[in-house]
């Protein structure tokens, strides 16, 4: 198989997983909400420290532009992908300097997943295929039952929430060797239905609480845990801020 064919194949697999591509027309009410959110962030962004300004203000600018433009804007402007079924699609990937079998084994140990995923409170294995997942949410926690729908040792794991779950979601994680002996590529794809539609996703993303960002952070933490055995930090370092002894840290 040539590279072109192969990547074409991979793209097709991705599309098949996400079925329906990225439609997601914005409703008028949603557009107003997103626009208001954007303006609010612009104003917020003008105050605060430089880093905050940079990120918050930038998002505000993007959202305002998005609301003004109106047509299928979120997908292109801040890359919130949705399919025709109204599900939000996210995918992330990271390359980890270890072999796929080792990494797969870490993930297959479902009840240890909360160690990898910071927002996961617990996973209780109920049977060979079934498990109960609990995640931290702004108001308490949310929990649902999931089923493993595919299990290819060393390569792939797929799951789906059972009908009637509070968060309708499914996903897969792929492990494949990275070219040139660079360890393994770990790819995660998730589909979920956000409580407040696209605006909910956007709001959560700005608050840094959206699954796409959590996933990015979790995969980086996973990579560092595997490669270093710890996460780098500046938490608790000396600085000239009041109440020093604590400073910096991931933010």
């Amino acid at each position, binding site marked *: 198989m040539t590279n072109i064919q192969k990547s074409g194949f991979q793209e097709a697999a991705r599309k098949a997983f996400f079925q329906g591509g990225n439609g997601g027309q914005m409703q008028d009410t949603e557009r107003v909400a997103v626009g208001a959110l954007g303006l609010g962030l612009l104003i917020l962004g003008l105050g605060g420290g430089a880093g905050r300004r940079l990120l918050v203000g930038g998002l505000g600018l993007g959202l305002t532009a998005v609301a003004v433009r109106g047509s299928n804007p979120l997908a292109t402007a801040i890359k919130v992908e949705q399919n025709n079924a109204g599900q939000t699609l996210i995918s992330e990937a990271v390359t980890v300097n270890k072999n796929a079998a080792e990494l797969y084994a870490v993930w297959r140990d479902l009840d240890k997943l909360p160690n990898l995923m910071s927002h996961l409170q617990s996973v209780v294995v109920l049977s060979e295929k079934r498990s109960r997942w609990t995640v931290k949410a702004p108001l308490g926690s949310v929990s649902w039952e999931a089923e493993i729908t595919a299990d290819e040792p060393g390569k792939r794991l797929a799951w789906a929430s059972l009908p009637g779950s509070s968060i309708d979601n499914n996903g897969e994680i792929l492990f494949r060797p990275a070219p040139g002996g660079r360890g393994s590529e770990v790819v995660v794809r998730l589909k979920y239905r956000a409580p407040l539609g696209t605006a909910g996703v956007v709001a959560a993303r700005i608050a840094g609480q959206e699954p796409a960002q959590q996933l990015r952070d979790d995969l980086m933490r996973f990579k560092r845990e595997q490669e270093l055995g710890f996460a780098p930090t500046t938490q608790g370092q*000396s600085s000239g801020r009041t109440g020093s002894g604590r400073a910096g840290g*991931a933010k």
Partner: protein
Amino acid sequence: MKAVLWQGTNHVSVETVPDPTLLLPSDAIVRVSSTAICGSDLHLLDGFIPSMEKGDILGHEFMGEVVEVGRDVKTLKVGDRVVIPFNIACGTCDYCQRGLFSACDNSNPNHRMAEALYGATSGGGLFGYSHLYGGYAGGQAQYVRVPFADVGGFKIETDLPDEQVLFLTDIFPTGYQAAENCNIVRGRDVVAVFGAGPVGQFAARSAQMLGAAKVIIVDRFPERLRLAAEAGIETINYEKEDVLIALKEATGGRGPDHVIDAVGLEAHGHGPGALLDTAQQKMKLTFDRITALRWAILSCAKGGTVSMPGVYGGLVDKLPLGAAFAKGLTFKMGQTHTHRYIRPLLAHIEAGDIDPSFVITHRAALADAPQLYKTFRDKHDGCIKVVLNPWGESAGEVKRA
């Protein structure tokens, strides 16, 4: 301990802050014996680097003695005299293992911030250089925490004075990498260096060490040009002559085979945030400030290299890409993979090939840092490079020694 703190644009101060402690088992604590102010610290002073916070400890060029090691530190022990690269690298990731230490995947805790600005994955952490680069406390202080101490602690086992080895932490390797990136053909290639600041000085002397047939340096400050001329480097004062014509003349009309932009871009951070909060003024400044890069591209000979050790942070405007394309130029740039160069360059210093202390114009106590940041920024008093002693007594007003 005493430390130099960033307090906002154009404001640094020296204050007493808590001593650093080990935060991870792979950390070490170093008692700083000498530290320097770098040209890139001026970008922080000028407020052009986003994500600084009041109270951040500055400084990324420092050396000293190991006074404490975490339980996982294997190669260093208390009492070792070390120089510390300005970039922080894990030593384990694929980039570190390929020697691309400044691209370390794992050393920046704030990777999300950097990814938002630069896409893909972020570069590694830096000492004392904004939260975008990890928010690590810097080394213009009496003590500093050194993360990944086994990777970032380079022992100095000879009795060479601090002043001869201190610049292994940044400006010497940075100038050297810039020259190395030119792939100079010994005895044949002519190299032009734009900017005769500390990095430009080391780039020019490194080009000589790498066998350039002729090295030309471009600046406007006579004392900087004079310092380069002492080493047999030809000089062009761009305030006195037209750079492009002078370079043509100096190279028989061909242009230099390789050009090094050791000026960089003062105005950083042209992400959406910078657009928002600074509007036109800073933008205009930026467009002016890529003059050196523009000259470099326009003057370079066909098939040559444009090597860029000078720091760039965001977007640039009116880059003569057509000229670069027409001449088939190669661009090489990026933060220095400092770890790679420390041992080979130390060997050059030990062999007497170069004495890096030639750039030092000002020596003072840490307490004098606020005054010297300004002297250095304004290029007053012939200031080229400042070295601070964290344990010295302030002498009041500091003059060139």
